[in-house]
């Protein structure tokens, strides 16, 4: 079983990551463009001194919850947040289903396990997420010229001052953006196996964007927005601890459900 998993993992790396190196280069370009946009949106006095934290706060601030009274206002999606998170969903949605349809049976006949195939895809998703967000953070670090500062001090962007405790701040901008998106992506790829990639990514994007309107703990998008944190929003807000537990729970459940589903699926 362990041998089989190692071989599956090797396959996933070659077929699902190594072969997409051009797309990863494209990500580097997109994130640098994003960094340039953020640089230009900062005032002249500040632009040259932006730190990594400033860039990440700009991207992951999110917006205040759209209250009922604001429903006449035009819909607004935080652009930088949308670019990073929606692009991630588009980046990962295609591979599992297309691999299944094209080469799936060749791999399964060799590993002798449909469940192992699914575990391989889950592992691929984790590896890809780490690569995607790894590239993102690295590019932002370069854009900031390797400058770093704690979150609690500055208010560069003219929005509500974000003051979080040190631990909550670190988790909010370095862990929550990708662990919650990973959980959403797990459900998305299971949906793509059941239906198709278009249905799956549409559902995932709608679910993600609904968090812009509503601050609820069961909408995972809230955990990727600093302004939804309980330390800022009060009891209506969310905490990183909640987000981590929810995300891990969804990942585990989806993995198990997917294994059961694949075992019975006709190839």
């Amino acid at each position, binding site marked *: 079983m362990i041998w089989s998993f190692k*071989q*599956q993992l*090797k*396959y996933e790396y*070659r*077929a699902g990551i190594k*072969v997409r190196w051009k797309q990863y280069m494209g990500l580097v370009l997109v994130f640098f463009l994003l960094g340039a946009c953020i640089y230009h949106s900062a005032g002249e006095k500040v632009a040259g001194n932006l730190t990594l934290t400033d860039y990440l706060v700009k991207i992951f601030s999110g917006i205040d919850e759209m209250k009922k009274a604001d429903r006449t206002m035009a819909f607004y999606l935080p652009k930088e947040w949308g670019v990073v998170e929606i692009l991630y969903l588009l980046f990962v949605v295609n591979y599992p289903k297309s691999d299944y*349809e*094209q*080469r*799936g*049976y*060749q*791999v*399964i*006949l*060799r*590993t*002798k*396990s*449909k469940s192992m195939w699914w575990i391989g895809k889950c592992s691929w998703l984790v590896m890809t997420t780490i690569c995607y967000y790894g590239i993102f953070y690295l590019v932002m670090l370069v854009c900031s010229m390797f400058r770093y500062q704690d979150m609690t001090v500055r208010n560069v962007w003219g929005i509500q001052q974000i003051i979080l405790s040190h631990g909550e701040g670190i988790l909010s901008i370095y862990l929550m953006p990708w662990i919650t998106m990973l959980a959403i992506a797990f459900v998305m790829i299971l949906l793509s196996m059941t239906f198709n990639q278009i249905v799956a990514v549409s559902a995932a994007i709608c679910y993600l964007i609904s968090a812009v309107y509503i601050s609820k703990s069961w909408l995972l998008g809230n955990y990727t927005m600093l302004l939804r944190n309980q330390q800022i929003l009060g009891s209506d807000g969310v905490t990183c601890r909640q987000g981590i537990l929810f995300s891990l729970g969804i990942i585990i459940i989806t993995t198990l459900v997917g294994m059961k589903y694949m075992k*019975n699926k*006709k*190839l």
Partner: protein
Amino acid sequence: MYLEVSNITKIIRNEIILDDISLSLERGKIYGLQGKNGSGKTMLMRAICGLLRPTKGNVTIDGKRLGDKMDFLPSVGALIENPGFIGQFTGYENLKMLADIKGLIGKTDIQDILERIGLENAEKKKYKAYSLGMKQKLGIAAAIMERPDVIILDEPTNALDEESMKNLHCILTEYKDHGSLILISCHDKEELEMLSDEIYEIENGKIKNHRRIQDGKAI
């Protein structure tokens, strides 16, 4: 018998795809499945591999039933419908990626099979640049390269010219002589009679006829 298919029935959305099919297959023979498009040939091959769970019936290999302690045939190579490979990889890289899963063969074996199947000049060519016939050959190569005990080829002669078909016949005969059980499907009667030792005719999910072949003719 090495491989027994016993009363296999498959129903999908109230439609009977396979209807009480039984086959007895021995090692060291080439069996043909002949039938029109939609007759159930591919579904039957999937059921034999273990890629499809039948509604009723079972597949037994060497006395062991699929679905008991094993879900798939222990040693099988298959080409079912379209061969699917990675376009950005060469033919060699695609085969290497699959071969590394079981680790039974190395670089030399893969190069040998590419040469035997007629792809020696295309080894370093990316798969997306292959013609239809080349893609089919690569699919066949993937199915046979690890010398499995059971080889299942669904319409392997699609897009192959006459010379390639004769070459395929030589390769399959060699594998047969080494003890492999080979099951191939085709809708062309003459092509199948050239390749097979026995032929099962399948129509609307049922076995309609069974005949033995000698020197390319039914006996």
